[in-house]
């Protein structure tokens, strides 16, 4: 069996074969958040989604939101900067736990 086939993205709605009401609620919420201009533009939302797609390493979402970013007017410079934000956040989230390490070192009398 192959994992992460691009054509599977088109079958997303099949997850609603069971507990369809919950899936409908998800899609309704999802579309309300992502598809409309709001306090954030669709372009800004697509860049946020692209960054998260990379952070979570979801190939379906990277596929969908690379296209969505282009179709809302972003360019590769802007898209790359967005994933650098995700990468910097990930690095920061790792490094900030160093404080916890220091706390333990202190508790052990090693610092």
């Amino acid at each position, binding site marked *: 069996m192959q994992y992460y086939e691009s054509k599977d993205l088109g079958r997303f709605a099949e997850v609603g074969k069971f507990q369809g009401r919950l899936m409908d609620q998800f899609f309704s919420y999802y579309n309300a958040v992502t598809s409309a201009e709001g306090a954030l533009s669709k372009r800004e939302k697509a860049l946020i989604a692209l960054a998260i797609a990379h952070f979570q390493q979801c190939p379906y979402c990277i596929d969908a939101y690379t296209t969505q970013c282009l179709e809302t007017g972003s360019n590769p*410079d802007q898209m790359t900067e967005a994933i650098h934000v995700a990468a910097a956040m990930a690095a920061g989230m790792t490094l900030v736990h160093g404080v916890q390490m220091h706390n333990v070192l202190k508790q052990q009398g090693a610092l």
Partner: protein
Amino acid sequence: MLDLPIHQPASAPPCSQRYDFPTVIERHRMRLPPVSVETLQVNITKLCNQACHHCHVDASPKRTEQMDHRTIDRCLEVLAANPAVKNLDITGGAPELNPHFDHLVTSACKLGKHVMVRHNLTVTFDGNPQTGESKRYLPEFFARNQVEVISSLPYYQEFFTDKQRGKGVFQKSLESMRLLNRQGYGEEGTGLVINLVYNPVGAFLPASQKSLEQDFKRELVSRHGLVFNQLYAITNMPIHRFKDFLERSGNYDDYMTRLINAFNPQAALGVMCRSLVSVGYDGRLYDCDFNQMLEMQITNGTARTIFDFNLKELLSREILFASHCFGCTAGAGSGCGGNTA
């Protein structure tokens, strides 16, 4: 929202049936007859100094097709005899490379027609790739004749522009725009209009025309001190060179599906073929420049060439539609003047 492409089963019918434009129009209970012939769009050469990836004309420095003097004069006769045809839209290739280009422009202006030229900007510097003839006079010539200049600039950055149109095109285009700006093009109050054309650099649909125009204006003025009037966002047509790219890259079905999913009845009502007639270099008539490139000649009981042009007959013709027409009806619509919805 997540883009959910529809994938066809292995036994899917051929493209001509899957992407059947007339059926979709029927399903929406629409009719799209001609409403006018406000614009005569003449494609006067397939010769071009560039060979762009997306070009639906397959224009290049090697092409030799040119509209001859007799056919150009016939176009002028038609313009003179039909006051309802208000606009002359001159395209190519690089139309400036036709030896009768200046004659066509100056004569149409004398007739009081609004003349638009699809000018690729770089021809001013490149000149004629076959004869070496210089075209440096163009900015001043355009201004003197009050020609509306419509120029492709795929993006306000070098990367996308050169990827689509060739190395060095971006910088050369900016220099050419600077010469046009010096003549007064793009400046309020001069009456000299330069509109830019954006089309996506790959297998995706254009962003909102309004937001792209804001981006282009902000970036071109702040980085390069350049101004223009309007931006037209145009969808790439799935024909010829761009279709070849879609097929080679395995994107054709997904692209067609994107176009069909984005079908907009309002955009369909405004399609350009309802208000123009396109003339090929050999004088044959078509519903639009895309039909011209697909050799879908107007045939149904009306004028077939500019030599038997008859406005009344043309208004009663049936426009020929095919799968590429989804390119004009997706999203906010796409025509030679940008969005149609």
